[in-house]
């Protein structure tokens, strides 16, 4: 029996591990590699984050928002037909796709926006790749009456036009980023530049567990509601903890949110799935943990896709949300320490899983989440029928139907 006592069912600060240390390091990873102008704002943010994540009023407001605005807890759904077809372990889906705005991203934006409000910042900015974090940021900004500016790579604006329109409907300004590779990493650069210039009135809502300390820990803590619920729901449904958790990893926020509350449950395998794009061997992928090397980008040390001169390489994935050359530093640490393992799945494997789950379960998953689903099939197949795994269905696929249609040669 591997069930352990429940951690307090609230957004208390990460008590599961000693990481990060006081300077934001996860072993050799993480840290705060930024220009001097950001040091003071980051210290201010860190102080506010520590204060409010131990503040009963803040936690009550956060809990109320997650319940009544986001729609938590999200269901833990047993995918019966799919499990039967796979023919191994039972597969449960943690339905983050059912959250308001359609992905796990809103767990974090609700938290950071409440923090911004407490800190007296009337303006929020965000970077976005697939547009899910941008939409989630624009959504909470609208609700709290804050102005919102979202940086998005020009390339991504093309392939995610419905989300661009959603952000605009919500009153956000969407600024196209035309520097570098015109994708998520460049949007992050541009948002950091905006923040440097406007630190007095602006709160930067980073969407993933990357960036300088305290972002990787703070975003993890806001997202760890996913794992806490999964833990409780597993005990309720199966009377024990899952044999494995599977989640896709771009920056890694849905994965760390799922994994973190299970870190000390050593019988639960933690498996992150990166985007192998056209295949890791082709070099056209987004899988730094599988095929990258450590380096420093966007304020933290982590695994990166970089060339022989230390320049950051362009990434490739059918899913804009995984198209990022770095990964959260805690994942780098979990990989090195062996507590989590990281696999990768190609575009075509993810698309196959996307179609299969849509037909078998009546759920259209995000292309990002489809990577986790594709790996879960391989994993479950070789497991016993009395075992069970949980896949984080981190987002819904409505935003991706144009991409999939285009692959099928259909114009919508």
């Amino acid at each position, binding site marked *: 029996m591997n069930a352990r006592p429940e951690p307090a069912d609230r957004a208390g600060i990460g008590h599961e591990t000693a990481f990060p240390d006081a*300077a934001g390091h996860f072993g050799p990873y993480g*840290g*705060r*590699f*930024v*220009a*001097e*102008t950001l*040091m*003071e*704002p980051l210290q201010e943010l860190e102080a506010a984050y520590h204060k409010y994540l131990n503040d009963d009023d803040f936690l009550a407001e956060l809990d109320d928002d997650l319940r009544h605005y986001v729609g938590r807890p999200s269901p833990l759904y047993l995918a019966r037909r799919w499990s039967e077809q796979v023919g191994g372990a039972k597969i449960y889906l943690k339905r983050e796709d059912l959250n308001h705005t359609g992905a796990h991203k809103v767990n974090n934006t609700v938290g950071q926006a409440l923090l911004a409000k407490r800190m007296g910042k009337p303006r929020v900015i965000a970077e976005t790749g697939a547009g899910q974090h941008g939409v989630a940021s624009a959504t909470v900004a609208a609700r709290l009456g804050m102005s919102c500016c979202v940086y998005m790579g020009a390339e991504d604006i093309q392939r995610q036009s419905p989300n661009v329109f959603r952000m605009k409907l919500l009153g956000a300004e969407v600024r196209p980023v035309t*520097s*570098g590779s015109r994708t998520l*990493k*460049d949007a*992050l*650069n541009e948002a*950091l*530049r905006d923040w*440097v*210039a*406007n*630190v*007095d009135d602006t709160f930067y809502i980073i969407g993933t567990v990357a960036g300088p300390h305290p972002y990787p820990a703070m975003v993890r803590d806001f997202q760890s509601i996913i794992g806490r619920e999964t833990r409780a729901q597993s005990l309720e449904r199966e009377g024990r903890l899952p044999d494995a958790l599977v989640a896709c990893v771009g920056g890694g926020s849905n994965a760390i949110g799922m994994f973190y509350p299970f870190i000390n449950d050593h019988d639960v395998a933690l498996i992150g799935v990166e985007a192998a794009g056209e295949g890791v061997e082709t070099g056209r992928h987004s899988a730094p943990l599988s095929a990258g090397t450590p*380096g*420093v*980008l*966007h*304020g933290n040390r982590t695994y*990166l896709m*970089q060339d*022989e*001169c*230390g*320049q*950051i390489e362009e990434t490739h994935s059918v899913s804009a949300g995984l198209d990022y050359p770095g990964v959260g530093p805690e994942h780098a640490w979990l990989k090195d320490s062996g507590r989590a393992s990281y696999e990768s799945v190609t575009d075509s494997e993810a698309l196959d899983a996307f179609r299969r789950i849509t037909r078998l379960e009546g759920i259209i998953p995000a292309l990002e989440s489809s990577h986790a689903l594709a790996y879960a099939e391989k994993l479950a197949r070789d497991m016993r029928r009395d075992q069970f795994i949980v896949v984080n269905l981190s987002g819904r696929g409505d935003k991706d139907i144009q991409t999939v249609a285009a692959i099928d040669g259909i114009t919508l």
Partner: protein
Amino acid sequence: MGRIADRFAELAAAGRKGLITFITAGDPGVAETPALMHALVRGGADVIELGVPFSDPMADGEVIQRASERALAHGTSLDDVFAAVAAFRRDDASTPVVLMGYLNPVEHMGAERFAERAAEAGVDGVLIVDLPPEESAEVTPRLRAAGLDEIFLVAPNSPEARIRKVCAAASGFVYFVSVKGVTGSKSAVLEEIGARIELTRRFAGMPVGIGFGIRTPEAAAEAAGVADAVIVGSAIVEIIERGGTADAVADAVETFVTSLRSAIDARACAA
């Protein structure tokens, strides 16, 4: 003493303020970089900051971002940067050269090898924009061992405790960032930051240069009134970006730097 200290000592003895000019190595091409460095010196630069191109220059504004992209488009590497400095050194033994860039290419080469090769090429100091003193425990001893100065930034929002910490870690000179923003953005408003610059000068125990958002001879002269040196980058890189023949670009750069120099010196004489 190294070239940086020598140069500031000469300036102090002459009662002059320093002019530090920035260009990106490899922009427009690696072959042009040494000639442009000489043009900066002919125009009156006291110290040259040479940008090491990086794919993700998050502290730089559009002008220097584009310069980095141009340099990387033809594959400018750290090897090329060292070669350019070595070529410059063949004809200029005295002007200090400071490399300014981001940590990842340095770390990728290995801090020790980077420091040794930089020193060998004739580099005098290094400013790694995204490496605050807190994170520099690995890099600092390597730079020191190679005899390189390590320049750190102080920002307009750095509290006193941080200013002390940064000044204690720095050598060569302290780089005071005059605006909250990226390079080449809005213009600095000296009244707002005067007190912070004073604090920095008090704790530094070494020269303080002021840069970011200083784009014109007038602004340079004004900034020279509150610091030991003025740092100008984007305005020069813009001239290179406009293009033309190699000679024409070098001439235009020299002319602009001369105008900065004259304005700074005229102010010093008037004061």
